[in-house]
């Protein structure tokens, strides 16, 4: 399996984490994307958006930051 594409959206205000994720997955037909954010709000927003676009979502909580793994 190829290396995941990393999207670093830490510290960005709403709705930018979703926008940078959107920009990344729009160029991909499938694969694996890791989105890094720092708030649960951003995590949930990115997860909801990705699910709507047909991506499988796994969330990992690292305390002071959050990882969302998107696969398709």
């Amino acid at each position, binding site marked *: 399996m190829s290396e995941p594409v990393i999207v670093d959206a830490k*510290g960005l205000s709403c709705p*930018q984490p979703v926008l940078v994720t959107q920009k990344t997955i729009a160029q991909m037909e499938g694969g694996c994307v890791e989105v890094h954010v720092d708030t649960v709000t951003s995590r949930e927003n990115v997860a909801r958006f990705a699910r709507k676009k047909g991506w499988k979502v796994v969330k990992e909580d690292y305390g002071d930051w959050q990882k969302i793994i998107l696969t398709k």
Partner: protein
Amino acid sequence: MSKVNELLMSRWGPIITGGIVGALAALLVKLGNPGNMGICVACFTRDIAGALGLHHAAVVQYIRPEIAGFILGSFISALIYREYLPRTGSSPLVRFFLGFFAMIGALVFLGCPWRAYLRLSGGDWNAIPGILGLIAGIIIGIFFLWNGYSLGRSYEVKKGSGYIMPLAAVTLIVFLLLAPQFGAGGTGGPVFFSEKGPGAAHAPWIIALGVGLLVGWLAQRSRFCTVGAIRDLVMLKDPHLFNGVLAFIVVAFLVNFALGQFNPGFQGQPVAHTNNLWNFMGMVLSGLCFTLAGGCPGRQFIMSGEGDGDSSIFVLGMLVGAGFAHNFSLASSPNGPGAFGPAATITGIIFCLAVGFLMRERFE
């Protein structure tokens, strides 16, 4: 408790929050808050600015416990659910002036987005041009977001820096209860309370504080945002937050109707004027400011309780903006826009356009 939390984090969260806040807002009017102003984040911040002597409009001075409750409710919720995360550094000075001009726009219209929806639910049709202006302002903000607008990243800071806003909220409650009079011979400020006008109309403080705490907790869990609602619907075709605003308007309308507080029309509406152009333009400015700052005024207060230093700066910009609005004849009155309100609104829109065009970034 965890079931309630799960529900608030689900797609039902904004709907439940909107419904409860709408009902409580209408009830607060029954209990003494000004008409169609059960909760108005901008008006209440303006009242606090007056109470602290930052402006001298004698009819709008009161320490609104709802606002302190928002911050503390969010703070407690964020601590319980381990979402307290002090952070700052995303163009704080720009955010200060976005808050400043958001307040100017809101006081030209006479209400923030929360009150715009509440005015609509109470039958004040002057809210319609205001809401259309709000949508227009948000759409201008979306144009900038599509084109790479960003105020840059925030960074984690020391835990202690996030305690400042909750401590400020506690201080406000202490000032409300003790009403200290400083100044020469104890006759001056800093706490001024209106004896007549909207500032003298308020629900019992303990109920208002309780509502504020509850709303702060609910909104922290559900991310209720009255500007993000329209932004996400237009930009991402995502109705998650918008459903909350619909619930807010519908439930507020139903409770207003049941309590005999629904009075449809344009004329004689409480704390409102009938100038459609400046009702519209004021909210264009506010909607644009809130979109560029990432959330509505309520959301900014909620995030300030979570430790977000940038939202706190925005809130302080609103507080100072309220002082300027009344000291320099920018705020409207029921008679219409203030002498310099239109000029300040245009100035604010030019500021926002400059921010939108200049603050662009590419993220790879």
